[in-house]
């Protein structure tokens, strides 16, 4: 494991405020999008749990489908965010 010497602190990053602001904007839009989907899930479970028993596709109920979708959408949004912010960050 040569080269794994972690004793030296890496120099502080010099940031580009424009890129930081752009990334923050992308992040906020995606956060709000996901918040809406997550809020819908929590609201449905809390107020209309009976609806979660409906079986819209593949023999699976809404509770399972919505829950799995929330996990998959989070992973996809993370990839999209990473792609949007690619190659233009400063070091």
């Amino acid at each position, binding site marked *: 494991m040569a080269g794994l010497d*972690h004793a030296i602190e890496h120099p502080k990053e010099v940031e580009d405020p424009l890129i930081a602001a752009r990334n923050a904007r992308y992040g906020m839009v995606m956060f709000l999008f996901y918040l809406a989907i997550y809020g819908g899930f929590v609201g449905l479970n809390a107020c209309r749990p009976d609806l979660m028993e409906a079986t819209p596709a593949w*023999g699976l109920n809404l509770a399972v489908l919505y829950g799995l979708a929330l996990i998959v959408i989070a992973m996809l*949004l*993370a*990839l999209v965010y990473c792609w949007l*912010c690619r190659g233009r960050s400063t070091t």
Partner: protein
Amino acid sequence: MIHHPSFMSVIVFGIFVAITLGLSFYFAAKTKSASGYFAAGGQIHWFVNGVAFAGDYLSAASFLGICGTIAFFGYDGFLYSIGFLAGWVVALFVVAEPLKRLGKYTFADALNSQFQSRGITLAAGISTLVVSVFYLIPQMVGAGSLIKPLLGFPHEVGVVMVGIVVVLIVATAGMVSTTYVQFIKGSLLVLFSGILTVMILNRGLKVDSSEAANAPQTLVVKSDGTRFVNGTPHGSSAGQADLRPVGHLSKLPNGKTETGPLGPIEYLATLQQSEIVLWSKKETVVDGEKTTTWSPQPTSGAKVLRPGNSPLFKGLQKDQWTARLDFVSLMLALFCGTASLPHILIRYYTVKNQAAARLSTVVGIGTIGVFYVLTLFLGLGAMTSGTLDLTDSNMAAPLLAKGFGETLFAVISAIAFTTVLGTVSGLIVAASGAVVHDLMSSVLRLELADHEKVKAGKIAAVVVGVIAIVLGILFKDMNAGFLVGWAFSVAASANLPSLVMLLFWDRTTKQGITAAIFVGLFSSLGWILLSADTFQKVYGYTADQAAALACVPFSQPGLVTIPLGFLTLIVVSLMTSGRKTTVVA
């Protein structure tokens, strides 16, 4: 249930612990500076850091607690998986890059980057300590649960063993060894959970209609401590009896008795159309003699795969408004809590720049997301495999593995044990960083040389480790997942309002931040301590007594205390804006 340790389990366990400690001693020689000890010198590769995020985050609560809750109650456990993962959206999109930009060692650094306030450092340091200790409890409880079947030692010995190993890991090389332990653990956990899921799907589903599988079970504990199972003295020798492992299907769709191998969607769809035997638990105490009776409850798969089967969420199906608020409160805390956990936040300082912080979060989300999908199959697999220990929901996943053979059980248990080690190590690094960097250096203004900071960090790690051991023994009967819900509530209430407002509201003042942390911390702690759940599960009252004594209408504090934190910050900042020292970015 009585579990007998196997030679294989002891060997595999020994190998895992030896590798973990070997790594720590290897890195100890290379870690001399405070930066190296507390933040790995900011030189961890983003991919390693991303998987280490998963290793840090996928704690005993995720692996043992969630799988156990799904195995005992169905879909309700999966709600935790969904909430835990959703929290990473906040971490990636809102917190990751600014936190890396503003901080150095601890969460307090970021909050204080523009103010240089001792008040903020004190509040953030105390908050980090309290949240870390709260989060340590379920990890130690999980460790105690694992040690019983793995090595045959009692719960207390398991907790002490974890405490000693973890303190050795942290006290030797700090964040460097912790990172690599978490990387290895995160990789192995996802890999072997995947293998176990494939085996569950390949085995398919089977009906067990035998009389023995459907018979109720009782455990009587006499006032002198002697125990009887179904009227026979408890034990594993001749003339003695032990509780029977449970978990089976009573009906499959179309009158089938066995399905053969199934695909993932097919597995869930078949379960939804089946009938599953869940187990209800009833406890009575008469003249000091405690009787616990477990009765089979055949339940349609459609009900098992919808919310509202567990004691925590059953009010959702009864239209109780307090249950709804409790549920929303918990899901809010899980959503907001991840980006507020000190041991997660400090991992942003172990990479070199904001791009690496972002990339490592994406890797973390991918790894964690895959694992949480697998928890649904692991939990449901345990529910239908006839391996559940009625007395310990935390053991569902390891005992499921035991159903596939002793070797897999040994490996899964050792990984689960390493899971605890990884998370506890991260928490202790976070706590010791708060003690040394925030409280000793910044608040008390002790002039410490670099090597003295490292030494003080190691001493703090030992002290926090001892506290964790004591709490792990005291809370031994509680589900790890449930306990983590509390830690998330406290973290989200204390830390998130300050972090978010600092980044997005330029009228935030240092007084506002300090007040918000203290109000969020103490209001959430107070709410938890006065809730019905705590009266019942911690203070030992019956459910009816706890409901009567509770001073708050529902048990999860987040719905009230997170907005309270934001409100406090806004009000105090507006009141002190004339004294504001600087404008934040």
